[in-house]
């Protein structure tokens, strides 16, 4: 119970700061929109290419915004204080991950609406399936993102290194996300690709909190 309170307090704090500052979400949404536009103009804004563009935009925006969520706290010296509170550091992982997942979920919804207009997609009749695909992907993105950000906590030039490490690990998730979104738009159930994202999420949700605790203890 105490762990849930701690994780919720941390997520609430991050989201409250973001709500008041609107730094991360604004930057991520603007960047994702630019990626969508760029890909749309270069590849062609057709419904068949929209899932790929959506997931590329989401993945790249994650790499832009996620370091800010964790490293701004490190720069202020507040992250060390967080680590020194009593209790499992897994709770910190859950809190940070939940905050990031919430921001990404909002971003996914914004991107869906923009893609609906831009690619002439009928998102409204497929909304539950599209939101489901987004939630599955967002959970995995936030878990891997939080873990890798912690991994590079004490590394110089971590903001530059993070995308290099994160991109390969995100690749299966983005690929499966594309396929599940294609299936959702086509009125299919996604089959194997839903299982791939599900497995990815379960694996990282089981391992990442433990690794996060081990990584943050090693100072």
């Amino acid at each position, binding site marked *: 119970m*105490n762990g849930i*309170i*701690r994780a*919720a*307090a*941390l997520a609430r*704090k991050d989201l*409250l*700061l973001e709500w*008041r*500052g609107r730094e991360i979400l604004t930057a991520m949404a603007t960047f994702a929109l630019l990626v969508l536009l760029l890909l749309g103009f270069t590849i062609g804004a057709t419904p068949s290419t929209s899932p790929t563009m959506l997931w590329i935009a989401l993945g790249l925006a994650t790499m832009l915004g996620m370091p800010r969520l964790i490293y701004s706290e490190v720069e*202020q*010296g*507040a992250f*060390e*204080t*967080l*680590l*020194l*509170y*009593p*209790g*499992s550091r897994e709770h910190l992982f859950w809190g940070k991950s939940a905050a990031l997942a919430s921001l990404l979920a909002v971003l996914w919804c914004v991107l869906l609406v923009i893609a609906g207009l831009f690619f002439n997609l009928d998102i409204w009749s497929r909304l539950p399936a599209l939101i489901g695909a987004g939630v599955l992907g967002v959970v995995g993105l936030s878990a891997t993102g939080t873990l890798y950000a912690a991994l590079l906590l004490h590394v110089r030039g971590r903001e530059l290194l993070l995308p290099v490490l994160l991109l390969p690990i995100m690749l299966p998730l983005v690929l499966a996300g594309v396929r599940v979104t294609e299936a959702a738009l086509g009125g299919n159930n996604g089959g194997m690709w839903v299982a791939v994202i599900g497995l990815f999420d379960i694996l990282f949700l089981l391992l990442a909190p433990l690794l996060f605790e081990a990584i943050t*203890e*090693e*100072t």
Partner: protein
Amino acid sequence: MPAAELAVVADGLTRRFGLVSAVRDVTLSLPRSSVLLVIGPNGAGKTTFLRLLATALKPTAGRVAVFGADLVREPDAVRRVTAFVPTGPTTYDGLTARENIEFAAAMSGTLVEPQEWLERAGLAEVAHRPVRTFSQGMKRRLTMAQAWLRKPALLLLDEPFSGLDADGLRLVDALIADVKSRDGSVILCTHEWERGKRLSDLMITLAGGRLVESTSLVSTTHVEFVTARGHR
């Protein structure tokens, strides 16, 4: 002195950063209900010493027990009884003073009435103002209140007097007195020696990471409990 009466027992505490030893072979015992003043020039290892005791760093060598809990094997047990107030404020500028207090309470698993702690910190009237509008001294008082609400048995203060006005200094005095009254101990590092001495029972001097001198500041035999290898 029986181990149960000791707040901190350090034996050969060492921390190296690469080839540089920030803290070298520090051995001391600190009784409960006492205040230890740590002095020394810049780079003497004072902050590293505090950060080691706070579990922010792991020792490279040596053993430390804080209220009987081993620093390396039981870091969470140490964190439960320890509060560390670093030199700079660790508050969140985008939150109000009250929200900062609520956050610290939730993270430390403590049920508190935020208003009470804001009053102690002299910040009750600005409880709903964002911390970004606060002066450095006000932020520091808020950081102190966040540490205080945890009711620590071992309080670690790094330069606690810097940037504080008379009210802020009284807050530090009250915080230290409260920890002592609960049979806890305080370790403070400061360059303001005279003020630090008035609040402390014991004093050690660090130089180049080594404990080079230990002194009792009160007319008791406390000095017997603070020892350094080769310095008694």
